[in-house]
């Protein structure tokens, strides 16, 4: 199982992506327990705050988008774990978004 955390927004508008293969972690059972705990589909809506980060968490078949302020409890634990387990890729193309991967600025 993979867990992908993608952070976008922020003042710089840069995108960081962390990707973890749970089965390759030293403690996969703890990962599975945590992922079970997550109330997928139920993050409470909050109005966006200018320049704050936006997190998208993918853990197929589940996926959720959260404002930074919503990142609490098991959500926060999962993101902390992912960020500790691996280094981020910056401005990585989005999985399943070929337009992002191919989009390049036309030469001026």
């Amino acid at each position, binding site marked *: 199982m993979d867990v992908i955390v993608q952070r976008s927004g922020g003042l*710089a*508008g*840069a995108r960081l992506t962390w990707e973890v293969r749970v089965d390759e972690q030293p403690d996969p059972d703890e990962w599975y327990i945590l992922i079970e705990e997550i109330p997928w589909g139920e993050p409470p809506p909050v109005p966006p705050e*200018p*320049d704050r*980060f936006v997190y998208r968490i993918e853990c197929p078949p589940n996926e959720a988008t959260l404002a930074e302020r919503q990142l609490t409890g098991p959500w926060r634990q999962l993101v902390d774990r992912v960020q500790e387990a691996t280094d*981020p890729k910056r401005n990585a193309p989005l999985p399943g978004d070929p337009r992002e991967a191919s989009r390049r600025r036309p030469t001026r």
Partner: protein
Amino acid sequence: MPQIVPPYLLDRIADAGAERFPLAAEAARRSLLHDAPRRALRGAPPIMPLPRDDDELPTVLPDAPSTPDRRISDAGGRETLPGRLVRREDEPATGDESVDDAYDGLGDTHRLFDRVFGRDSIDGAGMPLEATVHFGRRYDNAFWDGERMVFGDGDGEVFRGFTDSLSVIGHELAHGVTEHTAGLRYQGQSGALNEHVSDAFGALVEQYALGQDAGAATWLIGEGIFTDEVEGRALRSMIEPGTAYDDDVLGRDPQPDHMRDYIDTADDNGGVHLNSGIPNRAFALAARELDGFAWEHVGRIWYDALTSGRLGRDATFAEFAAETVRTAEARFGAGSREARAVERGWQAVGVPGEPSEQAAGAAAE
């Protein structure tokens, strides 16, 4: 996240440290004060703000005093707000660079809005300017939370502290002004306009503090917040969006500079920090065409649009463009060079700045 630094990069950015703001600002202020009337000097009675609807262009004194009510707090590396209050208005410098930079930057921002646009603070009624510094551990961001500006220290590898750039401080405070005026919804095009407005006034705060005209200005947002290891000048370039950085680690500045490259994405609240490049360039082009001090023409036109009450919270680029053309005509006259420059700016980035009915016959495109 260690990284290997190519030597060419070190050479190229070696002088970035010298561009640090406080000294340059200090020097500029000294030279400005030199020419300013004596009454602007310390101890003299404050100069009254200019009336909003003055027919004349404002004769602005860049170092005229204004009376902000600043409160800087220290989160001490935690993510709890507001943190401990460490410096209030009129209190001496603390010696903590982040605290003192935030304090000075809020003063510079208050001064622009107060002296040029007649707006006392974020709400126009003198509300305290509150900021928190040292937010989080190696926190790579600065934001406006609806009540205060919040600044992280950066990770030290890509970003240094976010209080190092006056345009960033102005940017955050301008989010508060937008929230209290046009209230542009932070999603999609209206969100990109919200970002644009913050960049525009962030740039103006810096230009005003330095006494720079539109030709001399860098039109960069966040100059000096990258570490020397990053190959990049700033977070964004208003005049040449997409060229602010191109770095092995950071990647390339992804901002579009024309509507044909508008980015549709679910990320970043619909690409608000990406598509803001389009209106940013329109603004900077109009300012460059007019030259002189940008706060006296495009700044005023944009401020009028922001506060006219005619913009919807979900305003599109085209609606915003049309409103700036209208406020340009209202303030400077239909067919004035200011109104024409604003129209041409929007045309250059592919936004149909619908001219007002009276001028419809003269519309280009």
